[in-house]
């Protein structure tokens, strides 16, 4: 235990000595100040501590949406953009050197010759690396918690869930960084390839999201055309029934009307069926791509879904969610209700949301941690077996 504590203490000292650690901390505080500068008054939203007001009839100090929006800005933008991107890149830059420096000639002999098992050294050093994120995010969340309490008068403890979530998210990348650092003993190679891995993960995930959105739009469209075909088929059957009834009565003008309706409907039905066939063909063409991207995504850690859990948990129990605000559901009126394209897009978006919500938090984190475990076992294996 003394040895583990010594390693953790050393990790802390190492972080404290880094200029980048302090820089990220200062930048985090600035982001929190920026978050604090945003607020609400009776007319709408305010910027720069009330210097600018943006009038909004739906979102203002007395609106229940204000709280959702404020916390949504924290989880969807600040956490997503600052913590899960900028701060993570800076954290990777800071921590990439941990294992290569630890294993460099002259340093490694000092440590490996101590009465500490290599596995203990490996794990303690790993935890030490995660300290960077834990400390940074803790300070950040405390700031966000106080700011949110001050601004919307709601002490949202779930903000602190960002600490484990961002740490877990970072650990997916850090484990790759550790593996590369242990194998190559080069900070630069470890950093560059970790970033490459991250961007690859991002690329696969984005491609998957785009393909699924197109797929759901296609499905929605197909359902729309199927309804039209069904409706036209129904109309055609009605016209034919009416025509048969009139033929018994012998009214020529009525017969002509129904004959022309039947002709128009038949022709419309043909084009609708063609359209439907086209949609089906498009979906069948899309299917192998969707399957391929699913296979590609399957072994990768769920970086953004892990961060997305924060939004899910903050929205839990709220009547209006951040997604309702973002998709414009709270602003909807009759005019938009009638717009088919808008509805279809929203329908696809909702299906995407359902797809995301269909994946449990345990599934997202568990699967990603399994990936992390496999990578760490590889890194550990190299670490403990190598001659230094």
């Amino acid at each position, binding site marked *: 235990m*003394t*040895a583990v504590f010594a390693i953790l203490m050393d990790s802390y000292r190492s972080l404290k000595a880094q200029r980048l650690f302090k820089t990220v901390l200062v930048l985090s505080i600035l982001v929190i100040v920026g978050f604090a500068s945003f607020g609400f008054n009776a007319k709408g939203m305010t910027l720069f501590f009330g210097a600018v007001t943006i009038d909004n009839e739906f979102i203002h100090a007395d609106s229940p949406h204000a709280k959702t929006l404020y916390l949504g800005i924290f989880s969807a933008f600040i956490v997503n953009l600052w913590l899960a991107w900028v701060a993570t890149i800076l954290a990777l830059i800071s921590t990439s050197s941990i294992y290569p420096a630890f294993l460099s000639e*002259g340093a490694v002999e000092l440590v490996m*010759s*101590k*009465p500490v098992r290599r596995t203990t050294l490996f794990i303690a050093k790993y935890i030490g690396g995660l300290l960077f994120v834990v400390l940074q995010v803790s300070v950040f969340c405390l700031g966000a918690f106080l700011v949110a309490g001050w601004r919307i008068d709601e002490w949202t403890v779930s903000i602190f869930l960002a600490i484990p979530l961002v740490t877990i998210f970072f650990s997916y990348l850090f484990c790759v960084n550790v593996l590369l650092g242990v194998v190559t003993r080069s900070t630069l190679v470890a950093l560059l390839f970790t970033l490459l891995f991250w961007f690859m993960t991002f690329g696969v995930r984005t491609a998957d999201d785009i393909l699924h959105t197109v797929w759901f739009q296609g499905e929605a469209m197909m359902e729309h055309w199927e309804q039209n075909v069904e409706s036209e088929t129904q109309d055609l059957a009605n016209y034919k029934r009416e025509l048969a009834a009139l033929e018994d009565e012998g009214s020529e003008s009525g017969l002509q009307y129904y004959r022309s309706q039947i002709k128009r409907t038949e022709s419309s039905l043909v084009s609708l069926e063609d359209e439907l066939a086209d949609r089906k063909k498009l979906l069948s063409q899309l299917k192998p791509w969707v399957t391929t991207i699913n296979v590609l995504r399957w072994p990768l850690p769920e970086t953004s879904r892990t961060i997305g859990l924060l939004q899910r948990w903050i929205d839990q129990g709220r009547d209006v969610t951040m997604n309702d605000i973002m998709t414009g559901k709270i602003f909807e009126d009759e005019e938009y209700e009638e717009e088919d394209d808008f509805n279809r897009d929203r329908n696809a978006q909702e299906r995407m949301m359902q797809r995301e919500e269909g994946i449990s938090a345990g599934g997202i984190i568990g699967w990603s941690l399994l990936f992390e475990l496999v990578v760490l076992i590889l890194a550990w294996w190299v670490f403990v077996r190598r001659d*230094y």
Partner: protein
Amino acid sequence: MSTAPVIAIDNVYKTFKRRVHALRGVSMRVHEGEIFGLLGPNGAGKSTLVKILMTVIRANKLSGTVLGRSVGHKPTLTQVGYLPEHHRFPKYLRAEQVLDYLAGLSGVPRRVRKKRIDEMLDLVGMRDWKRQRVGEFSKGMQQRIGIAQALMNDPKLLLLDEPTDGVDPVGRREIRDLLIRLRAEGRTVFINSHLLSELEMVCDRVSIMVKGRVAMEGTIDELTQDSRRYEITVKGTVPKDIVSSVDGRTESTTDGMMNLIVPTAQAESIQPVIDKLRGSGVVIHVVKPVRESLEDLFIRAIQTTGEDSATPGAVTGRRSKGGPEA
């Protein structure tokens, strides 16, 4: 001095990347309370051997013990201090933090560490720099800190790899005195060094490694036994019959004198020779016992254990117990 082996290893083999045979059946004994010197040219396998003892690398084949426990037994290392060659401390740490960190890894309790930091820094003359970052230290200062950290866990066995590397002459003397003091305290010191003159002054026993094998091992007296002789410096020439009667040889000196070299270590044996020289009217300037220096021994070991030397311990002196070829 007790003779219980603190380090007892047999047939240590290490091959890197299936090509480089670093150790080819090394056997060695280091006894309690002695200063043991490990010598050898670059690439002889000295550091590899030390790293194996310290579990930094693994041998392909090995049987042996350190402080009575199998090599590789991690808990035993709580009683071992180690100064690696070219060690590098984290630059962001202060001198006291380096000692605290590394002693912590050795399992030294915090309370004890706190007390020993000042003691050890005092011992190596670095107390005034305790709050200074080690990144700002000279090589010699880092070396002193290295020795201090190796002593933090109050070790029974101390392994020092090039301890005087980068240290000035005054510092070297201090380190020498420290080693002698540690021996007096009953600790065993194992030194790996290139500075033969330094080792000669402090080592009780040495081992010379060449090409992954132990070429010689023993006390300096044992190893130089065959080379011990008397040199009698005379003015003029030495009669040939005297030279042949003592089975000796002569050599001219730079100042016009002549040396008669008599192959004996016994002072009694030299007395009749002196009498004969005097009887012949030869003026004797100096009579002195001479033996090979450690450097001579080292060079001889390297030259004798050439590329084609098939058997470990091929050099005279106490032969090593080398194993078969790797």
